[in-house]
């Protein structure tokens, strides 16, 4: 087995200690850092994604694989120019104003990060102005909004409107989620997409950015 295959295998098994050792060894041997990411770390993570979708891997296993991947990436990152760092895309995310529940959003963040997205997590109780400010500052390709309560989900529409008003609506894709959210509601407020769970949200982002 090549070092790339071994590294991919280590990521799949979620062995973050092993990922650190082997990545360092490959760096020391002069392997191209970008190749380490693409052919080793990300290659492993792609398999994890497929297996998770098929129901052969579970969330905590995906989390461990993601941790193994980022352990490796931490080591090679200083060796790669920022502009060359591979990224699936940049996503700005937050739980909407009035809502303090964030386990759903955290799951989405972790799943997206494990799929190679760069995530800016604004946190909970985020009002439309803060989302707008975040878009200006970070220039994400996608905004994700989460709500558990039917009372707070209405604030999602306010954010969409605020982005329109600032002329930013066309610069980003908007996705929403949470227990009371439906595709119908997403259509109604003019969001670009809705996902019922974290894995689907990740796929949705991929599709919207592609």
């Amino acid at each position, binding site marked *: 087995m090549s070092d790339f295959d071994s590294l991919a295998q280590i990521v799949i098994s979620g062995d973050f200690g092993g990922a650190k050792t082997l990545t360092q060894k490959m760096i020391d041997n002069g392997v191209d850092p970008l190749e380490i990411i693409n052919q080793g770390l990300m290659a492993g993570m792609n398999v994890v994604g497929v297996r998770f979708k098929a129901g052969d891997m*579970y969330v905590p296993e995906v989390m461990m694989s993601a941790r193994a991947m980022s352990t490796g990436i931490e080591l090679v990152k200083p060796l790669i120019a920022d502009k060359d760092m591979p990224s699936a895309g940049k996503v700005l995310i937050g739980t909407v104003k009035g809502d303090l529940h964030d386990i*759903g959003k955290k*799951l989405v963040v972790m799943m997206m990060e494990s799929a190679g997205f760069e995530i800016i997590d604004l946190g909970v109780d985020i009002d439309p102005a803060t989302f707008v400010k975040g878009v200006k500052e970070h220039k994400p390709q996608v905004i994700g909004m989460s709500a558990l309560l*039917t009372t707070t989900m209405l604030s999602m529409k306010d954010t969409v409107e605020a982005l329109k008003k600032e002329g930013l609506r066309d610069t980003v894709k908007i996705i929403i989620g949470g*227990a009371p959210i439906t595709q119908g509601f997403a259509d109604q407020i003019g969001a670009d997409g809705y996902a019922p769970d974290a894995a689907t949200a990740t796929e949705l982002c991929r599709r919207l950015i592609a």
Partner: protein
Amino acid sequence: MKKIRSNSIEQATPMLRWVSESQIEEIHLATLEVLERTGVKVDHPEALRLLKDAGCIVNEHRVRIPSWLVEECIRLAPRKIVVANRKGQRVMPLEKNRTYFGTGSDLPFTVDLETGERRRSTKKDVELACRVMDYLPNYDFVMSYAIASDQNALVSDLHQLEAMVSNTIKPMIVTAHDEINMRAQLEMAVLVAGGREELRKNPFLVLYSEPISPLVHTNDGVAKMFACFEYGVPVVYTPGILSGATTPVTKAGTIVLMNAEALAGVVMAQLKQKGAPIIIGGGATPMDMRSTATLYGSPETMMNYAIMTQLSQFYGIPNFTEAGCVNSPVPDAQAGMEAGTGILMAQLMGANLVHDVGYLEGGKTGSLTFLTMCNDFMDAARYMGRGTRIDEETLAVDVIDEVGPGGNYVAHTHTFEHFRSEIWTPKQFNRSFWDTWEEQGSKTVEDKAAELAKEIVATHTSELLDETVRTGMSQIIAETEKQKQ
């Protein structure tokens, strides 16, 4: 003369103990350690001040609660909380070993009874569910069931309370968006009870408020609770969690964390007001590690509730738990298993307030058909919970002798006298032979439950509220709406 037995123990009901007293104490001590070592986050200014003054170590919002204070507050919390019905009758004493069933609150979706279509819930759904539960004898209390999402969202909780008190006299557990809406609901309750004193004497409503796991006590969550204590209204202060996401994945760790959150609530409650009526417990649901769904009706939840009920009995504080909420999206065989085992376990353990009965899809979808079906499940569980009667009459030695070998018991008066109490009769289950079942339309239990639900909706209405009370409630809703706009 009646023959008696001496030096003999009778066991009136089955006794279920999931773990030993020593293990309960072990969980208690672990909980005390969490509160003292890790502490909790409290966002309510008055609660923070009370905790600090009582001897907690407070750093900004982080509060570490010493063990002695927790134990003192457990002693102060009432062992018995009596909840009345709308008419002020004290029908629901929450005390050790008394089990009451009811539905849950705030379902975003409902399967329409007429069309069978799943759609967003409305105020009408709250009204219909309350009428159905007002009629069905095994529902002891109600919650809103559905969200009144066709009403102004700022005051939808007020509309839900209005729909509830207008359609049932049974005790009710309410939810509130925030302190303002809670106070508005309390004023509505004052109108219904006929005065603030009457409400305090015989509260017919209970608030359900939540900490957010792990270990966060929000400003709104605590403020709503404190407002209720001012009116003498009891409060359920319990978390809804996801094992493996917002709590440790282990059952014991889940229970410790939830218990820490509930006991922190007990401490805040008793510091606010000695003897404040607080109810502990919560929804101890694991996360499905494939779909991330919340697993209600799973074996783990029932195992957790068994221990949490023992804990509440150990503390002498009433508890709030959950059963009859299933992950199946339809009322099928899976739903029957999920609901049936949970309801039976809750009954046999003697949990106090058992909510969420009649919920589908992991607490996201309501169905009056399933709500109605669960009445039979609860009936069977209660029948088993009452236990087996052992005495001279039921041992039937005289009857056995009288009938003798080769005879039969069908026409015996002993059978006639006892068959109704000795053999449970369901209202909706199918028990006929195949041919008869076909002749009667090949109906499934779901068909029969839907028929019964439709019949109740068509024919049953609860006692009407006084016109002035109804007008008064509408005014409060209108004023609150104006205040919030």
